[in-house]
């Protein structure tokens, strides 16, 4: 199934022949997940440079500021206005938007998944030497992210846990 999804995305499979893929994606969780992930990978490879560093925050802020519109007529008018705007936007916008959406989902997924780890965190901290405690690994990680030495792309700092699976 994943090969077929991949083929569909690469235009190697005609949309007319792909009805069964769309159907199965609605019911089949792994297939839908593969579709989402391939798009995320594709978007990243094409470069999300159109996104500003504060894109997520700004987008969320703007959504906050949007008034809740109760009158359906007004919504209709707004939708057509948005459609007009959309046609004027560069094609990259839609990539950026889906990229942001996936990113938000990704971050949410990460937060949910990392929560159980917190139970173990206090134990780990208690075992660390006092010196290490005063110099959090975050500084080293921030240094390596912004000013990497040639080996830091491949050899992680000591604090980084690299589990086998």
């Amino acid at each position: 199934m994943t090969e077929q999804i991949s083929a569909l995305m690469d235009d190697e499979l005609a949309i007319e022949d792909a009805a069964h893929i769309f159907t199965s994606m609605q019911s089949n969780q792994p297939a839908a997940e593969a579709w989402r992930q391939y798009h995320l990978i594709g978007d990243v490879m094409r470069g999300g440079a159109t996104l500003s560093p504060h894109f997520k925050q700004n987008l969320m802020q703007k959504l906050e500021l949007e008034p809740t519109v109760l009158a359906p007529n007004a919504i209709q008018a707004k939708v057509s206005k948005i459609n007009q705007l959309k046609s004027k936007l560069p094609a990259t916008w839609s990539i950026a938007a889906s990229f942001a959406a996936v990113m938000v989902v990704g971050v949410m997924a990460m937060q949910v998944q990392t929560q159980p780890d917190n139970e173990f965190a206090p134990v780990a901290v208690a075992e660390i030497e006092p010196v290490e405690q005063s110099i959090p690994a975050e500084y080293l990680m921030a240094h390596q992210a912004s000013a990497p030495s040639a080996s830091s792309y491949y050899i992680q700092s000591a604090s980084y846990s690299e589990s086998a699976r």
Partner: protein
Amino acid sequence: MMRLVLARFFASLSPALVLGFISCLSFNVQAATDENAWNVLQKAAVAARALSYQGVFVCQTERKTKSVQITHLFDGKNEFARNVLLDGSPREVLSQGGDLVIYNPKNEKIVIEKRRGQNMFPAVLPVNLEAVKESYLLRLGVLERVAGRESQVLILEPKDGLRYSYRFWIDTEYGLLLKSVMFNSRDEIMESIAFNQLALLNSVELDWFKPKIDHNKNYVMEDEPVVIASNGTPVDWVIKDLPAGYRKIDQITRMVNGKLHPVTHIIFSDGLASVSLFIEPAPKGNKAKVLLTTMGNASVYANINKGHLVTVVGEVPEATIVQIANAVVFKK
């Protein structure tokens, strides 16, 4: 062939640099002069970016060793590279020009990290070597064999005790950097990266330029560090006397995990080595203390100065990071 590729690479660079390099090329390979050594180094800086090649290199620090498979392509306009870790978890680094995407397996997930790329082996040398020339001396060494190829050894030594020394092995035919070793002041190896297999690529196909996808894992974007616009933060400090040769490269204000206040992060470089300086309000109740330690290859120094915590991290001698910490002068 080689000349043609280089010429195309230069078309994408500034005219001044091109002139500079062409004048380098016109020198004859002759006596072992300093100028000649710098020309070989200059050529290596360009060759790493302008040639297309594939190989395996081994990256080694005090603690760990990793093998990396590299495929690098320059198509006349853009640079593409895919680096795959062959040992341990299958981390991949894909770069296009200066944009870098890291696929980093962490437990059941693959975290996608985006970075601005620089100094990725073998492109560890800057194309503009002026800053390096200011702080280091270069001389030619012997000829040695690396990865089955003949190479010229270059010895780069600091003019003072504020940086480490390096040794480079440059392919005598391709001009490519085959091996790079960094030594501390006691001549101990801090970092070593060397090809053990290398071949030039003839094709401009890009079918290899994609990560290997693991269907069983979730792909997620990394949690971005919250970056704060610097203009709003009141600055009550200045940076006075920096150690010789170090210049400010960048400054960002960010939130760091577990810290209540934003941290100002400033990056300095002497052309090869980089140092990070972090300034933030000191936690209440902390008495003045000074800390000097090492974490892997990096020297780390922290002190509390007039209500601020100043932390300096870098792959440089301790004297350098202490000097950078002391260069911060608080106005209060």
